[in-house]
Every structure is written in C-alpha cells, then in structure tokens.
C-alpha cells in the first residue's frame, strides 16, 4: 500500500483528502469563460440527449403497454413492429454513447483542462502534502501564474 505523504498520527493528516482544497479559488474557476463554455457545451448535448432518449424509451414502453395490436403487427414474417422498435433502442444506446464519448474526448476534456490549468499546480501530491503540513496555506492570487 502507498504510505501517505503526511504523518499519520496527525489527526488532520488522516483527513487531509476530505478537506476542501481551500487554496483553490473555486468561485473564480466557476466564473471563468472556459468553465462556462465547458458547462454550456456539455449541457447543450446532455440535456437534449437525455430528453430524447427518455422520450424515445418511454414512448416505446407506452406503446408496448397500450398499443398491443400495433406492436404485434408484422413487418416481415415473424418480425413484429415491437421487435423493430426494440432494436432501435439498442441502436440509440450505442449511437448516443459513442457520440458522447467522442464529444467528451474532443471538446469537454480540453476545455476542462483549460479551465483548471492555472490551478492544477495546487492539486499535485506534493502540494496536497504541503497543504496538510502548513495549513492554512496562504496563496494570494498574485502568486498564481498567468494573473
């Protein structure tokens, strides 16, 4: 097992990972244009995507519940409308899943990295250990590179 970097006997040390990283200015990140762009872009895919898949799925369920005759109609030999619609659910899951994966890799991850790049130096293991030993660490915004 990996030994913690900070002395174990110290009460605060044992809880270090649970403590909020107070020296990171979370509100500043939240207000940054990169973060706003990230949230906006993610939301503009996830919200319509969720509405779409829930509607398509619940629509299928409602048809299966209330439109037995329609769902039992033949498309080709033993293949019924119900099974065709069920197969569209499989296609929907895989298509939306892969679309999200590609978007996340190409768009969301780079934006997230940009939004936090000024702060990641405070989020290294060494910085976490320092954070524990010398708490509270006063890092003023002037010390933050890029400001």
């Amino acid at each position: 097992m990996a030994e913690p970097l900070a002395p174990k006997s110290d009460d605060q040390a044992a809880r270090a990972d649970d403590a909020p990283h107070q020296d990171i200015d979370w509100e500043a990140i939240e207000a940054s244009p990169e973060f706003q762009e990230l949230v906006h872009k993610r939301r503009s895919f996830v919200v319509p995507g969720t509405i779409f898949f829930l509607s398509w799925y619940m629509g299928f369920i409602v048809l299966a519940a209330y439109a037995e005759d329609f769902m039992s109609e033949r498309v080709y030999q033993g293949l019924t409308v119900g099974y065709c619609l069920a197969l569209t659910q499989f296609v929907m899951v895989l298509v939306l899943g892969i679309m999200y994966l590609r978007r996340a890799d190409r768009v969301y991850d780079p934006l997230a990295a940009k939004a936090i790049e000024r702060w990641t130096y405070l989020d290294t293991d060494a910085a976490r250990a320092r954070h524990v030993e010398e708490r509270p660490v006063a890092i003023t915004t002037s010390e933050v590179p890029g400001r």
Partner: protein
Amino acid sequence: MTVFAASINTTAVVVFAIILAITLGITYWASKRASSTAQFYAAGRGITGTQNGLAISGDYLSAASFLGIAGLIYLYGFDGFLYSIGFLVAFLTVMFLLAERMRNAGKYTIADVLAFRLRERPARVAAAIGTLNVAAFYLIAQMVGAGVLIEKLVGIDFTLSVLITGTFMLCYVVFGGMVATTWVQIVKAVLLMIGIVVMSIFVLNKVGFNPIELFNRAEAAGKAEESTFSLGPGTFLKNPIDTVSLGLALVLGTAGLPHILMRFFTVPNAKAARSSVVTAMFIIGFFYLLTTVIGFGARAILGQKGVEAAGKGGNLAAPNLAESLGGGAGTTGGDLFLAVIAGVAFATILAVVAGLVLSASSAVAHDIWSSIIRKGQNSDREEVMAAKIAALSIGAIAMVIAILGGEGLNVSFMVGLAFAIAASANFPALLLALTWRRFNTVGAVTGVLFGVVSALGLIIISPIVWGGPPGAPDTGAFTWYDLNNPGLISIPLGFLGCFLGTMLSTERETEHSYHELYVRSETGLGAERAVARS
C-alpha cells in the same frame, strides 16, 4: 437434513470446483493489496476503463438477467424482452448524468458526494439508508435465486447452496476487497459471454443462422395449447399502467444502484469512467440480444412441453436448452453443456453478490462507523477492519433471511423493488446534489425518506404481495391500487421530497459549498487520485 438430493450432477460439481478455484486464486493474489481503504473500497483507483466496463457488466448481469430474462422470453416472448430494454437504456442515464461526476466528486461511497456539500452526519445517514435498503433487497433476492438454482442444477440442498454461495462471496470481499471483487466480476463477465455466445451459435445453427427463421419457429411453437408465448406485448405485463411504472423504475433505477455507482470510484479518472460505461453498453447490449436467441431457441426446441421442467418464471429454460443442445438428458454432451451453463450461472451469482456486499459494507464502515460514530478519528486500518466485520455481518444476515424465507421469496419482485428504491431514493438526491445549487441537507434527507418509505409502503399494499398474479389488475386486498411496481408514484415523490425539504428549510450555506463540488464534478480538479501500487 438431507445434504445431497437424490441425483447429484458430478460434472456440474467439477465445473463449480474449477470456477471456485479460479476465484479463490484471484482472491489470494488480491489479498496482498487490500490493506488500505483506497485498495479495499476502490482497488486503488487503478482499474482501466475496459476492465471496469467488463466488471460493470459482471456486477450488473445477475442470474435474474441470464436465467430470468431468458426464461421470461421463453414463457411470454416480447414482455420478457421489455425488461432487457430498460436495463440497457438505463446506462444512458448513468453516463449522461452521473458516471463522470461520481468519479470526480466521490471517494468510496455515494454518501461522499452528498456529504461534500451538505451537513455530513444527516447526509451520510440518509445515503446509508438508501444504500442499505437497495443492497438488502437485491442481495436477499440473489441469495434465494442462488439457492434455488444450485439446488436444481447440481442437486445440492437449498440451505447448503445458500451457505456455499454466501461463504465464497464473503471470502472474496473480506480477503480481497474491491480488487478481488473486480476480477471475479471480470472473469464472470467473460465466462458469461462465452457461455451465451456458444449457446446462441448452437441455436442459430439449427435455423441456418437466419434470425427471422428463429422468430418464425418460436412463433409456430408458441401457438401450442396453453402457451403464453407471443411476439407482441401483453402476455406477461397485463396492466398497462404497471408496465409504464416498471419501465420508469428500470431506466432510472440503475443510476441509483450503489454497487454499480461504486465501480466508478475504481478507475483513475473521468475519461476512464465514461469509456467504461460504453464498454459495458456494448457487452450488456450484445448479451440482451443473445438472451432473445436463447429464449426463442428454448421455445422453438423445448416447446410447450418444456414449460413444467423450466420451473417457476422459466428460470431453468436456459439450462434445459443447453442440455438439449448438447444431446439431451443422460448423454455426455448434454450433461457437460448443462454443467457448464450451471457453472456460468453460479459464477454470475457470486460476482453480483460480492459487489452488493462490498457496497453495503462500505456504507456501514465508511459512512456510519468512521464518519458518524468515530467522527473521523479512526485510522485507515481500523476502517478496513470495520468494513470486513460489516461485510461478515451483512453476509450472515442475508444468508439467514434467504434460508428462513426460503424458496418462497419471489426473486424478480425483490429485484424490482430494489430498482424502485434506488430510483426513488438514491437517484434524486444524488442528481440534485450535483446539479441544483439551492439543494440542501433537509432536501436530501426528506427526499431519501420519501423515496424509501413510499416505495416500501406501495410495495406492501401491491397486488403481488396480497396474492394477485403478476400483472393482473384489480386483485389483492387493496383493489383500488393495482401497481406492482411503485416507480411511477415513488420516483416523483422522491424528487418532490428533495424539492419540498429544500424550499421549506432555511439552510443556505450549501450554496457556497456547491461551487467546489460543481467545479470538481465538471473538471476533475481535486478529485481523488489513483494510489501507487506497492
């Protein structure tokens, strides 16, 4: 007590022994790295996306999925397939709304996400109540299912079957923690997929690899007298509003299952979390397509005369089909194929119950023992010990209830209940903690309580508890209430509880703590790291 029933299947015993030997080997290997909490609960966060995708599939595809759905499709056709659709589409809910956020914001349990911004003690108690309720119903259902199946397939007595399953499950969890549990789930997923693919090839071979021909043959065989088989809906789920309620609980319930959400804490970052969901979607989607082949194959080959042998709910349709495909009862091929499929079902049960016990014991040790009773003053080592003791106790209780309740407990009803509680209690509180700025502690507590109490209460008055046949309306003691699945009412009530609790209380500090949770869950800054392997 007769320990061994009249006909013990020796081939099956050998296959079981091989599976147990493999999983115990994994546990021995994993036991050396299960000493810290990060290793015990989260496998050091060193599981890759692909491995985790396999492990999610292994955690999710229970015996209810493998034998239960194949059996329902065999008996009823389309309505059995309806379950698989809900189980699969649910992963879009998990992926779009929770997977990455859980990874970025959580540590070991779903309570960590709530406690991050809410008052710690009530938030953890609420989340632990949700987790333990879901895990309890799901676990007991799986244990009973395990007992029934092993009794029928191998010829070992029900009580002994439950004891064997419980003992091995506890071995994996107590000695190997999340590392062993993950690899048992991965091995199980691989075995399950190989088993169902081989069986499907045998079935498809009989129809010249033409799926439409399989539909035609199943339909022709389904026209027999007293057959309930249909290629359209309505033969099993007869009450439309109940079907809608079930559908809703399935699609939202997975996103509240603690043993599934816990898997996202085992990967190094959000990227691996989302890729693991897509891997799981492929495996689970392919699996559910093949359960149709198995169910239709059983209908076409075993026909209506196989219904009695398939048992209640058709659970034994798949093993019986395997026996028939191998050459029939009494032949070497038939015995071997039956034994292999029984072994796969056994591995399936073991992997699912291990994941459930681990999630329940983490809620007890991490949320209740360490954070509430010991107020964070205990050492890492003590928490691991507490988790192991919790696992032993939970496992023992589940075994006792399964044995006392015996074969009379309705497995699919209990799984449905677990999904309904997960969707009504855990899902609303988690989603709102991550996305609603105004959400507060009172909202989380009332939401979880509304969800758990309404789901349980509605189940208690449901027709299925009062003797009505599944899906039939206007039966049972409470004729004005005919939902067997409470989701349609209890899920909105869970959200309503969160909303009312929040709006009617004055706690506002949680809006401040939201900034960190929000940024962290969206970007991964400050998220828990993978630990180096020793």
